């Protein structure tokens, strides 16, 4: 990503941001509320129009080739109220054409303690349970690039630790992970490169695990 610019209604939200993420990288994008973390992620996946050169796997993010390489988890779970949890796993596997991901997503749901709820609609579930479903679908896919916007929001302590372990493992097995969040809560969980977004500009900090704050 080179010189990413995002302007909304004539106001610059993200300005000339440049960074790259390779296989095995785990990056944590931090910044104060309103810094533009979610906006940057949405621009990155093509949900918002942006200036500059953005490429995922060497392709324009909105192209189908690029979409075949990443999965994005928004800050608010986007779920179908009339699909059950198990049906979400099936649909996700079908639309990404990764049949094996259904079993993995179901396994993650079991790990998150939702095994007995697979036949239920997510509309009846709490914010944290919906977030777990959203994450289980993304983790099950095991895409080369995983993008997560505030994934720890609403999760209980156990689920937070599970998620941190899963993301670390994903990076160790060759996947790239970029997530947003607040530094204080995540330093103790992740060994990630910290990118700080402030007033539209990005700066790279030392990896959290090496900063001695764990």
């Amino acid at each position, binding site marked *: 990503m080179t010189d990413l610019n995002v*302007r*909304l*209604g*004539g*106001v610059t939200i993200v300005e000339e941001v440049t960074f790259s993420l390779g296989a095995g990288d785990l990056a944590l994008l931090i910044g104060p509320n309103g810094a533009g973390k979610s906006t940057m992620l949405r621009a990155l*996946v*093509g*949900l*918002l*129009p942006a200036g500059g050169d953005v490429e995922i796997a060497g392709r*324009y993010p*909105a*192209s*189908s*080739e690029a*979409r*075949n390489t990443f*999965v*994005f988890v*928004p800050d608010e779970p*986007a*779920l*179908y109220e*009339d*699909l059950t949890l198990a*049906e979400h796993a*099936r*649909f*996700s596997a*079908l*639309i*990404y*054409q990764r049949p094996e991901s259904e079993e993995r997503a179901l396994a993650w749901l079991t790990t998150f303690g939702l095994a007995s709820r697979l036949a239920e609609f997510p509309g009846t579930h709490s914010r944290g349970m919906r977030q777990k479903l959203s994450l289980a679908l993304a983790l099950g896919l095991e895409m080369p690039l995983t993008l997560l916007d505030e994934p720890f929001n609403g999760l209980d302590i156990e689920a937070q630790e599970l998620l941190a372990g899963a993301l670390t493992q994903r990076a160790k097995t060759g996947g790239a992970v970029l997530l947003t969040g607040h530094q204080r809560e995540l330093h103790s969980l992740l060994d990630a490169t910290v990118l700080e977004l402030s007033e539209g500009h990005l700066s790279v900090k030392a990896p959290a695990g090496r900063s001695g704050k764990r």
Partner: protein
Amino acid sequence: MTDAISYLRRRTVWRSFHTYRVWVGRAIGWWSIIYLIFWLVVFVLSGAEMVTTLEQPLTSSVPFGVAVLVALLFVGLLVSGRAPSVVLDRRDLFRAALAPSRPLDVMRYRMNLRRGVLLVGAALVGGLWSFIAPRYFHLSAPWAAPAAALVALAYFEIGWLRYAGYRRADAVGTAARQAAAWLTGAVVASTASAVWFGTRGTAAAAPDAGAQLIATLGPLAALTEASPLVLLVPLLLAAVAHVAVARTLLEQYPPRFAAQSLVLTQLQAMRTFQLIAGMAGMRGGREADAAERARLLAALHDRPGATRPRRSLKPPSLDQPAWRAIAWRTASEIYRRPRFAQVRLAGLTISASMALLAAAQVLSGAPAAPPTGAVLDGVGAAATAPVTFAGSLVGALGVLLAAFLTARAGAGLLGPGLARAGLPISAADRSRGRSLPAQLVFAAATLIAFPLLVLVRSLTGGVMADPATLLLTVMAYVGLLLTCLLVLEKYSSWSGAAASSWEPQVVAALLVALPMLVLVALGVPSWVLPAQFLLLAIVWIVEV
């Protein structure tokens, strides 16, 4: 990927349909619906039987005029295309559109829904034409329904092509723009030639075969011609446009489609909420929603105003009392509304001021003129009254109507409600702060309304109050206005009903007109004005 979308739609659409079916059955009842359908059919059939064939046909230029109008609608598409006609909701955007699925597959269901509605609507209109054309125009138009449906379909498809190519430099965008231009050109050219030869053919005693053929090749030639050939051009237009639309969605979505979808779904939700509020008898705070709607529209088109206000009022300094802050809050909300909403409200306020001035004349017992037009309907009747007539029921009803109009305007000027619980402010401060901007706007409106009323009076041969009663009229006006605004504010705050709903407005109007209604009935109209001031004092003192 198509399997995934089919899987999704099979389950979600079917379940939604099932839920809706159950809801309709429980909320309305299927027997009630069958009963309604039965009577609908009866009314349609009896209505159809009443349509008889005219001995002299109506002018034959009507169908040609319709064809030209439709062609102009197509031309209008060339200057549109900033926003999509079909959007995806948030779930489809994040779950399906970001996945490696073909945009065409994801969009198909929602596009087909829109196409279906258009097809049915246009076919009904075309069918109606097929029915009335032989009777009113002595024309046979058996193909009007399918032709109209196909033209509507082409209109929808070209609209999408314009959107897909809007300010887009890549090959897909260029192709979409060109396709839209060519198809619109084809519509205009074929309409022009068909209308030209059609009108000539109508005028000529024996039209030649070539002209007749060209006349059947317009998009809406089915309005005047009975040949099945009339379907050829609409079919071609719809088919070509449909294929061109599919080509725009093979690989990527239009650049701003996702962002605009997110905004448009919020706007739709707002509209749905207002509709439900309207069905529940509330206006749904439409005035207060106007600013948020304007912000969303700015976000839709990426204009300034999407993230920060374009207009601001200077806040009061920190040493000012609380009611000034409330007044500033209310005034800011009014000031930030879209210009159109402000102009509409200004018009309503001036009308209300004129009506209230006329009502004040009645109260002060001033002689006046005959009824003065739409604004003063009712009130005008009251204002016609000579001094002795001021105490009549007509006068009281005029005051009631003027008070209601004032309450309507006042509701738009009170701004958002303010829940006092938890705030260290008195009810008097809240009422004072919320109603102050309305009082100021009404004061300004009076400066326009008064000369307007004088003008209207002079045009209708009446006179305004003489100097002797002018002071009384002004006092009565101020009394009526303050009473109306305070009752509206206090009642809406006390009851929890939004000032924009009917209930507080009706209560305010009734209470303002109460002295006149009661004292006239008791035969003591001369007590009306003092009683009005007494009422204002009571309303002022009561803290709720």
